[in-house]
């Protein structure tokens, strides 16, 4: 059975007051991740198939086709993990 860790390479906090979290997905899974997230989250906007502005469970985030996502307003690591699990598993 897959876990969030199977898809995520690294999670880092961004610096700046617009505090957010950058999730870098594993390179060999990035296409699968992008496809899954686009299927499950609500697409608000996209540009050239490179950047996707999405919403999921009242959280807004941006997904990049390079396999990275910036989440804003996530309250804790546990909350982020739950969101990622719902999006990916």
């Amino acid at each position: 059975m897959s876990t969030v860790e199977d898809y995520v390479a690294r999670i880092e906090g961004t610096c700046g007051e617009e505090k957010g979290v950058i999730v870098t997905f594993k390179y060999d899974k990035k296409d699968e991740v992008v496809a899954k997230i686009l299927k499950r989250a609500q697409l608000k906007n996209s540009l050239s198939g490179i950047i996707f502005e999405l919403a999921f469970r009242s959280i807004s985030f941006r997904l990049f086709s390079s396999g990275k996502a910036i989440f804003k307003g996530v309250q804790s690591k546990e909350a982020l993990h739950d969101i990622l699990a719902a999006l990916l598993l």
Partner: protein
Amino acid sequence: MIDAIKNFYENHNANVHRAVHTLSLEATEMHENAREEIARFVNAKDAAEIVFVRGTTEAINLVAYSWGLRNLKKGDEVLVSLMEHHSNIVPWEILSKINGFSVKYAKVNTDGTLNYEDFESKFSRKTKIACLSQVSNVSGVINDVKRIAKVAHEHGALMLVDGAQSVPHMTVDVKDLDVDFLAFSGHKMLGPTGIGVLYGKKELLEKMEPFQGGGEMIKEVSFSQEKEQCDITWNDPPWKFEAGTPNISGGIALMEAVKYLERIGMAEVLKHEKLLTEYAVKRMQECSKVTLHGPSDLSSKCGIIPFSVEGLSSHDVALFFDNYGIMIRSGFHCAQPLHQVFKLQSSARASFYIYNTREEIDRFVEVLKEIEQL
């Protein structure tokens, strides 16, 4: 540079100043040649004034602990500017909590230039050291460190210059600037990571206590049966500050990077960067949603352009560029106080070096125009 590392490990790999065998002697000669070359590069009067460290951060920490710990006390002041990298703020703040001295901050104008009047007015008999970056890592502003060094010396204070962003980009002559300490890093000047330099005037280094203890930094460790303790004699500078096995290949590779830059000429390096900066600023001004930060007078800055895109965080901007293979920095760039001066939550930063071209700037602006559409 990469060939130099390979050559060292393939043909000369041994510790320095340790053994009498051939490889050790070869490694020692290469290591000390590197020191001499780097001393010439910054026009130090003696190779003993060049201490190998991990980078600029370690160099500043070395001064803070080896000099500051023993010379700064309650009532004294350390003067820094608000444009400093955290590496030139935090060591002094940490030490101030131990020794009880004060850290004073000189103002920066809203365009990112140094407020010289404020800096100079903050000198007093209490000031023991002034610490200033020669080039801001956020705005690229070039500071007149020679002017500040003169004022520092008139007040009996020392002058430490963070040269992380200046030594790679312009001629830096420590004799002409008359600074007491200069810190810089290898990885910002075509060298490897994990190697950097602290320049210090020999007479100061001689008086300073060691930074770390271990091999290399001692002449003698003699156990006294009578006192039941060890008597230790320090080595001479620079080795007094180089405890343990140094980054030998790093120093040798940095020497190769220095030779490469010298073949181009530091004046040419600066000229190239200034031309690129002028061109990039002109092209970026075509973008209506892009705000450039820093001074409008480009003559006083290097090849660094901080900017924001309306409605987007710097991280969004950086990740978008990343999709096109264009790598820019986002966030505070380890200089949060300067972002407070700019009233910014963070910034994106484009920067140029000798390998960048006008065509790359055109591509950068093309992508920037796409980002504006987000």
